């Protein structure tokens, strides 16, 4: 199906392990984003990307890395998971231009629990 997908939808891991969350979009949108949602904080930007091989940090990037070798994929890796990274993670994408040029399209989210 067309759209933006995330996998896995649910993940439980242990402190210190490396975890990769996947994001795939079929629209060929240039821009992609990773957010985390935590109670009392809303959505906070972790990393974003303007195109393949162009990425930049958001406000809460410590402990995370991203890559974007292909336009459609934007994986997020937690290098050494900590309990504070327990959260719901959302991937999003957006086009450049158009009538709703600022609208982002979100994936369904990944709920990550770090024990």
């Amino acid at each position, binding site marked *: 199906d067309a759209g*933006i997908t995330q996998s896995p939808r649910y993940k439980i891991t242990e402190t210190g392990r490396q975890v990769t969350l996947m994001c795939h979009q079929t629209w060929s949108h240039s*821009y992609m*984003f990773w*957010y985390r949602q935590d109670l*009392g*904080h*809303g*959505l*906070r*930007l972790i990393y*974003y990307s*303007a195109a393949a091989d162009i990425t930049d940090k*958001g406000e809460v990037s410590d402990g995370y890395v991203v890559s974007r070798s292909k336009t459609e994929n934007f994986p997020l890796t937690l290098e050494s998971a900590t309990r504070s990274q327990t959260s719901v993670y*959302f991937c*999003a994408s*957006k086009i450049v231009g158009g009538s*709703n040029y*600022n*609208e*982002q*399209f*979100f*994936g*369904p*989210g990944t709920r990550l629990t770090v024990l």
Partner: protein
Amino acid sequence: DQQVKQNSPSLSVQEGRISILNCDYTNSMFDYFLWYKKYPAEGPTFLISISSIKDKNEDGRFTVFLNKSAKHLSLHIVPSQPGDSAVYFCAAPISGTYKYIFGTGTRLKVLA
């Protein structure tokens, strides 16, 4: 300091009545605002937006009002329906970047 604030974490409204969700911002350079709606276990979906050159934008039951002098915007839902029960986020892109600032969200509950 570039913030978007939603000071009401929750709101309950009777079906058929008006729901008013509020959002305040600190950066007068924000030139576009968006509202997103989020159901449990789903990603946010775009609802309505407004440019800073306007003070009102309407789409069906949803209207967003922008008061630039007060740095305040509000989302009105009339009439409210039980299916409107969700978390609503306001957001603003930071001018000159493709970063977005989101508010903390307001959980709306529409009572049947």
